[in-house]
């Protein structure tokens, strides 16, 4: 049943994609068709996922269709179903939002292809999680890359967008090399591309499992956005239209996590260093991600760096899970995987919500530079409120969902530190302060974003004349915020959805006893918190009913002529947080100090470039290109030279081959 629904979902998505292209120049109709298809497909996919998760077990089906190199075998098990759920929820919400968001582009851009590629992307992601055959998996994976590439380059008349698209393509394709090698190696081991065959063949030995793990780390890590292969992410996500950013950041990068988890199921019991490696990656990605986010002045780019951070948190969870698995500590393993998986869903929800909020801001003001915004809370109340929910959620604070998943990882790390012993214990212990630091920095960053964008007063005319987003854009944000709150208040229900997948990842038969017993307590905490806040609000209202309430200018510490430009800026806000980490950031400073008695101008700008990109990857790529460029003299245009190549090749090969058999 679930598989039928899911494949039907793919069918609807593909059909609506075709329809959206087929209606040609009737842009709004195309958009409507695409959106309807996306929503229907998401509903079908979500239904399939829930049905499968509630029923438990796994289903498998083979289509009567032969790929040139493999079979079309699809299946749903808890792991797939959970990711399918994430795709459906975020994909559906973002599609509705996109219908409102893209409307503004009607007449300037072709909306049909945009809607079609959106649906294709969702379909490809569903295909990735459904695939039970390496070839089908890679096929869906590449289609996913292609579709998202087209979405990233939607506004391809902008040079920066084109460059971002190219960067994305380069990174994806270099990453996919590792995946090709990975699957081919597994096939060589198992004799089949089919996942069932890979599972049946058992764990590969002789270092092959280690190689496969590393390949998966590179290949899937590139898509997921692990440091330092994340470099495409901060360029591509801001370049895409906001609903696409929501989808990409929300779920597409999680396909990397899915792939990693899926691969791990083929590789048998993990050695200790796998978990430790993931913990290391998680720490670096998380801390670097949030630091770079703090240093950004561009709203969407900032959010993109937060995706790197959150992927780091997920990696920490996976690391804890692997560590537990390697030591046979079922509880630790379960907590780590469950935390990571739930964070996948959570991040999808709040990052989707935040990108949608950013899109609404962009839509209303045309401005992405944080320091030219401000005061939008008044003109865009719904966006502001939902963005605040997302900000609190992503900071890992109760009563929202981010807290629940981080809590699971924390508890797993504490237990790991206590019970794993040795290197595994140390690795688990390292998770704790790292996650704490990431959380603290995330709070700082989102206070900055929320405060500078939505609070205070407008810093520019565009911000001053902002207006609230349309209904199609508002409701997905409201729904997303509501879901974030729901998971935070009712964690037991939602952890229950992630639990089967976590069990599968941890190769456990049953849930370790008592692990999730504390979840109802989190519900209590959340409810008491809300009740206490409400009670205080009532108390204050009662108190103020009898007293005078005045509205007056903000106290300026004695300075009477304050202007909006004197508000604290995002850059100044972040400065004390970043100062101790200056050596980790690649900062370029433009400094024009006031000079003379009556200085006219003064300027101070700081731009933080990506160290991994600018110090590591870009020079490497440039070096390779230079080497290729030097080869160009070979094709110098002279026929004599060309004939000399033929002669030289002939002589070398002839002498070599003939000498080899010479008597």
């Amino acid at each position, binding site marked *: 049943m679930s598989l039928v629904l899911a494949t039907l979902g793919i069918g609807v998505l593909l059909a609506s994609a075709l329809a959206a292209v087929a209606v040609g120049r009737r842009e709004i109709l195309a958009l409507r068709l695409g959106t309807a298809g996306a929503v229907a497909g998401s509903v079908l996919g979500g239904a399939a996922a829930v049905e499968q998760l509630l029923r438990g077990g796994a289903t498998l089906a083979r289509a009567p269709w032969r790929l040139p190199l493999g079979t079309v075998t699809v299946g749903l098990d808890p792991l797939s179903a959970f990711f399918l759920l994430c795709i459906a929820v975020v994909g559906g919400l973002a599609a509705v939002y996109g219908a409102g968001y893209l409307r503004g582009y009607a007449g300037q851009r072709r909306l049909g292809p945009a809607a079609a590629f959106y649906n294709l992307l969702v379909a490809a992601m569903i295909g990735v999680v459904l695939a039970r055959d390496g070839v089908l998996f890679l096929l869906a994976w590449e289609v996913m890359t292609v579709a998202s590439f087209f979405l990233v380059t939607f506004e391809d008349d902008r040079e920066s967008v084109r460059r971002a698209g190219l960067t994305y393509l380069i990174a994806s394709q270099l990453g996919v090399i590792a995946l090709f090698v990975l699957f081919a190696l597994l096939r060589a081991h198992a004799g089949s591309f089919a996942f069932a065959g890979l599972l049946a063949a058992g764990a590969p030995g002789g270092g092959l499992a280690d190689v496969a793990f590393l390949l998966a780390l590179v290949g899937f890590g590139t898509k997921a956005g692990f440091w330092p292969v994340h470099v495409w992410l901060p360029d591509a996500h801001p370049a895409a239209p906001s609903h696409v950013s929501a989808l990409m950041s929300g779920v597409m990068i999680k396909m990397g996590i899915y792939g990693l988890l899926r691969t791990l199921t083929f590789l048998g019991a993990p050695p200790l260093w796998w978990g430790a490696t993931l913990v290391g990656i998680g720490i670096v990605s998380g801390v670097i991600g949030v630091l770079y986010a703090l240093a950004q002045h561009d709203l969407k780019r900032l959010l993109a760096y937060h995706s790197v951070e959150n992927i780091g948190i997920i990696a920490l969870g996976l690391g804890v899970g692997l560590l537990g698995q390697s030591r046979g500590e079922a509880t630790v393993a379960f907590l780590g995987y469950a935390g990571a998986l739930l964070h996948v869903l959570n991040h999808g929800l709040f990052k989707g919500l935040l990108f949608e909020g950013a899109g609404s801001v962009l839509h209303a003001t045309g401005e992405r530079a944080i320091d030219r915004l401000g005061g939008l809370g008044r003109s865009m109340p719904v966006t502001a409120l939902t963005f605040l929910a997302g900000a609190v959620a992503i900071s890992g604070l109760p009563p929202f969902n981010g807290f629940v998943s981080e809590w699971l990882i924390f508890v797993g790390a504490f237990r790991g530190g*206590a019970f794993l012993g040795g290197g595994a214990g140390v690795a688990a212990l390292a998770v704790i*302060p790292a996650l704490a630091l990431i959380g*603290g920095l995330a*709070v700082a960053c989102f206070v900055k974003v929320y405060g500078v964008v939505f609070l205070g*007063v407008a810093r520019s005319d565009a911000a001053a004349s902002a207006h609230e987003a349309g209904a199609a854009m508002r409701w997905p944000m409201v729904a997303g915020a509501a879901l974030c709150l729901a998971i935070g208040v009712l964690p037991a229900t939602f952890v229950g959805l992630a639990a089967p997948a976590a069990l599968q990842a941890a190769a456990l038969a049953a849930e370790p006893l008592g692990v999730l017993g504390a979840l109802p307590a989190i519900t209590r905490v959340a409810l008491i918190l809300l009740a206490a806040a409400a009670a205080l609000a009532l108390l204050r209202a009662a*108190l103020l009913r009898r007293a*005078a309430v005045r509205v007056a200018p903000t106290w300026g510490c004695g300075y009477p002529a304050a202007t909006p430009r004197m508000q604290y800026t995002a850059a*100044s806000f972040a400065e004390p947080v970043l100062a101790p980490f200056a050596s980790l950031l690649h900062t370029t400073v433009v400094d024009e100090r006031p000079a003379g008695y009556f200085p006219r101008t003064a300027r101070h700008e700081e731009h933080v470039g990506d160290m991994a990109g600018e110090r590591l990857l870009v020079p490497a790529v440039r070096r390779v290109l230079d080497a290729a460029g030097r080869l160009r003299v070979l094709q110098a245009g002279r026929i004599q030279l060309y004939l000399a190549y033929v002669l030289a090749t002939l002589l070398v090969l002839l002498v070599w081959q003939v000498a080899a058999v010479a008597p």
Partner: protein
Amino acid sequence: MNGILPVAAHVALLVLLPPLLPGVIGKTKALVAGRRGPPLLQTYRDIGKLLRKGAVYGRPTTWVFRAGPLVALAATFVAGLIVPLAAGSGPLDFAGDVVAFAALLGLGRFFTMAAALDTASSFEGMGASREAAFGAFVEPGLFLALTIVCIPAGSATFARAWAALPWTVWSPTWPVVLIAAVVLGVVLLAENSRIPVDDPATHLELTMIHEVMVLDHSGPDLAFITYGAALKLLVVAALLVHLVVPVPAEGGWAGVLWFLAGTAAVAVVIGVVESTNARLRLQRVPGFLIGAAALAAVGVAVLVAQGQP
């Protein structure tokens, strides 16, 4: 923690005790400085007065400004329900409550800073910025200190951790617990904006942190803030108290007495520290906090070396 009575006692302590702490600290400072100082119950009086007053709201502010004090107080209060006071566990205790405790403090900080930014004042923004930085640097120290006490217990749960504390002097882990206590002390000072991180008595906005953030609040809001700050002091101090004073797990009158004594001692120590130290330069605060975290990390390492986990 079961039964109505212990819960009632816990809530009573939580609600009534906090404003006393600033009084004790103030008295101590005054005594050290050879002054008489304000009355011990001055904070109760201040709060009462503020609650009766009207309010002035800055023109640019929105509901976030009004929500800040509420959420901060509510979050601290819930954190107070989690943390054990006069007994071995709090009324809301559960497995993994340590993490929730820290997160609730973070929530309070989030909304306090957001409210500050809502005023559009550069001074309050400055305060929020500093709070954000110090808050971020406090977190690892707090968690590492908690790690030290939680690991031997095998659980990130206050009740379990306090029960597992080594109360024999020759226990090999007591130096590590001492480290945890010192680090928690630093966290206490930083979380509550005390010297040497912040000077609650300063009068120059440019040098303030917490005070400048709440500059624009007035009336009941300011009352909530003042009360909330005291509550936070109590809640964080409660951690320290349990490390240095053997509060009996079963609570009862003995528990209340031990707890009150411990809390008073902590307040006096704060007073002494504030009297004998100067505020650090702002740029040096991160180093101070990171140093504390590093100390805690050393503690954890010692624990690991002892084969504790």
